């Protein structure tokens, strides 16, 4: 990017935040890690599915690994309400429930047609993203199907390869709708609440939205794996704001996927292509 373009970008990006800074970068021989979840005790869990494991980083970045014979290729992670961890595994076709000691407690096998890319605890229910099925499955913790949301499509409560799911304030549920280039919103009563952004390559648009995380204050962070950017939305109706570096250029990551906020306000980003997880300090 030449200097004129950078200046132009700064001028047009009126909604950009002050510069963000990468304050942590953890690597532990991960291969294309996908999702991240931050446990109640602050430990950071990262799905390293190619290596059939989950890495758990402590506050100093030291990692330990979780492996279970039942776990083949974990992809999606979410913190469970009781301090434990939820794992979706696309090869095992299962959702795993780990307790707060990260012991595997429950293996919920899914139909073989289900492609579970992410999972979210919503009360006593689990919302499972069925990527290939272009839908959300709502099951109880015994695997009993309670509800389904969406179908393949591009208008309204439909999906084209939904990827990750996250909850926000006011019982909002966000789902990254990858090939539709948007964030789909539902409430916990399964009602469709509309979408955030649409497909495109300019700020406020998504080309490959992959990760979504919501802060208690209502901010919604979304990663775009192709453009390598992060955008913040204050609400459903707000314009997206790019996360930029000290030069006011969009802070760029190589294939960012899963993201999560920690209690201190750091936004943790899985940089899949480099096998890293990064803590980003936002202004």
């Amino acid at each position, binding site marked *: 990017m030449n200097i004129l373009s950078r200046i132009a970008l700064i001028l047009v990006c009126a909604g950009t935040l002050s510069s963000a800074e990468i304050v942590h970068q953890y690597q532990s021989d991960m*291969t*294309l890690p996908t999702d991240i979840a931050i446990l109640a005790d602050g430990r950071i869990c990262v799905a390293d599915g190619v290596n059939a494991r989950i890495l758990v980083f402590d506050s100093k970045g030291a990692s330990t690994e979780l492996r279970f014979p039942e776990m083949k290729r974990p992809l999606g992670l979410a913190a469970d309400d009781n301090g434990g961890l939820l794992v979706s595994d696309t090869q095992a076709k299962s959702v795993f429930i780990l307790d707060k000691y990260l012991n595997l407690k429950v293996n919920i096998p899914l139909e073989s047609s289900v492609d579970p890319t992410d999972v979210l605890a919503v009360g006593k229910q689990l919302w499972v993203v069925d990527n290939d099925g272009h839908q959300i499955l709502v099951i109880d913790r015994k695997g009993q199907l309670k509800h389904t949301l969406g179908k393949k499509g591009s208008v309204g409560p439909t999906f084209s390869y939904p990827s990750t799911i996250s909850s926000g304030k006011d019982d909002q549920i966000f789902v990254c709708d990858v090939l539709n280039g948007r964030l789909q919103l539902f409430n916990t009563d399964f009602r469709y609440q509309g979408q955030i952004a649409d497909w495109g390559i300019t700020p406020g648009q998504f080309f490959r939205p992959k990760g979504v995380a919501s802060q208690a204050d209502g901010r919604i962070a979304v990663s775009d794996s192709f453009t390598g950017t992060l955008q913040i939305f204050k609400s459903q109706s707000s314009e997206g704001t790019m996360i930029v570096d000290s030069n006011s250029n969009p802070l760029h990551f190589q294939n960012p996927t899963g993201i999560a906020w920690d209690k201190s306000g750091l936004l943790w980003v899985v940089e899949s292509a480099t096998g890293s997880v990064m803590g980003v300090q936002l202004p």
Partner: protein
Amino acid sequence: MMRRYGSYLLVLLLVPAFLLGQGKRKNSDEKECGICHVQWHPERNNVKSLLPQLETSTVIDGRAGVVSHEQMCLSCHDGYVKDSREVFGSSNHKKDMNQAHLKIQGLPLGTDGEIYCGTCHTPHALKPNNPGGLAPFLRDEAVNSDLCLSCHSSNAKDHVNHPIKVKLSPSQQVPEGGQLSSDGTIECLTCHPIHGDRPVLAVEGENRKALCTSCHEEYFQIELTDHDLPTTLSNSGSSMGPNLEGQDVCASCHSTHNGQGKMMWAQEIDKSDGGNAFCLFCHSPEGLAPLKAYSHEGHLVEDFIMPKDVPALGIKAGDDLLCTSCHDPHQWEYTQKHSVGFQNEEGTEYTSFLKLPDDAQGQLCTACHTNQKKIFASDHSVSREGFQQYFKASKTFKGQCSVCHDTHGSGWEDSDVDKTRMLCESCHTGVHYPSTVGGFDHPMDIAIAETSTLPGFDGKITCITCHDPHVWGRSHNELKTADLDGNDANSFLRMSNWPEPTLCLDCHEDQAAVINTDHDLSNETHNACSFCHAAHNASIEDGLVSAWDESAGKTMNEHICFSCHRPSGSAAEKMPDSWNHPREYGTITHPVRGTGTWKDFPLFDIDGPAEVVGFIDCFTCHDPHRWSFNPEVSVKKDTNEDGDYMTSFLRNPSHETLCTDCHGENTLWKFNYYHDPVKRKRY
């Protein structure tokens, strides 16, 4: 009027809807392609565009081929549209690999000639679930190796590469993660997962063991034998040979691709050594196994085409006879129960990388030499007591064939020493064997009759001229013996020698006249020769007379003849009343006179033939093999025919004797009445 206004209203309503629909379709088409072809996006040049600056050397429609950039592919294949994390996580078959050696045909490359995702894949290919569709969106079929060979054609050349297009045997298994073609044949993908995390399946570093064992587990009996060169060379402590550290046991001899010769040979070979070149690379004075150098002596291993199938050794008719006809270099011991030897262990008949052992049944050798199996039932079986005593005494052990034959020893035929005879005598002059020879035996250093087809050593008679040590009774299908003395029907004789003495007459054709004469004493165990003659352990050397009565007479002739021609003998009716010639009158032999051969008028002394001067004895006048000197009356008219001056086993007519030298005109009288003690004195 209302209808007209209605029509206008309808048009006003439909046109915007149509235009709106057109706009949506355009947007939809734009996204349909733009979902990957992002460089076609109308905002691509917008200063706000978030498109990353991707370095790419691919050009599509005159623009940088961002669409084919790996990051575009990964944006879906990272697990969130399609899960290809293992593919993208693989370090294998990346675009930065060295491809200068390849001849890539019919596949797109980057402007710098490098491969990229689109070299092999195109999303525009038929979807895999459509007829003809190739997963995963391949430009050509990979599972049958077509796509791979577009670049790696040299890796499919027969013999120097691992074969493809062949089916696994029932005992072979597809390597985990490998694929067979739809026809079940081995293809590139059987071993090469393309995007796995290793160049080939289950390979650790340069060690291919885990991969190779899936199909070739039996060959890994080679491990820790002397043919396990990575181990052997490492243990040798020397720097000789190739550096095979960390490589699998196969690596020393086999390269999976582009080997130096057949069987994917890994080492340089001297093609002039033919099919044995693979072995001779090491088994030569300059090779890694100089102590086991092949000497080109012993068993034939070149320039011989196998005339028939030998299933036990995996040989087919038409195969070259090679080292590997007998040896399996992958297994030290044939049963695989003793697959691991210790380093430099000297081989035995059960080990030595032999396909079959040379055990008491001679399994290895008799697989081809089937006719020699008859030896097992004979006294030449190594299981017999004599051999066992020999093995015990010598603290050695030999197999049925190797006890006599040294497969890799020096050639017997080319030696100037009769090793065959030495071999026989090594046992048959010893203490452990009943048929010991070494007394008065048939001479063996004389030329074999020109008319004979019997084998010999340097054209001369040796043991195997008469004997075939593999068959006890060749002509009579008599196999079994148990420490018995033989007779003319067996005794390992090479030719039939009973009831007709065919073997003897093969050389001694002149003596065939004895057959059916009164001197043909053949019976159920003896032929016409052996009653009087013994080929081994005869009583006297001259004539190899087998048995005689020393009390029957005073001279050698008398001892022999009077054994029968005496009152208590079998020829008592033909007992001469007078026989002896005055022995004080010596007679000079024909050879000394220069007038003929010794046989024309043989002369004797007390102990045997006289070469210069002797006296007249029985065999001077009589040839016991021939009823008459006249060939026309050589056969008797009946068994009890009395003889006369023309027959009676007389050697010559009277006028051809030396008798006239002394007896002059009385010779005929003396000759006719030689055995009449009264009449012969009349003149």
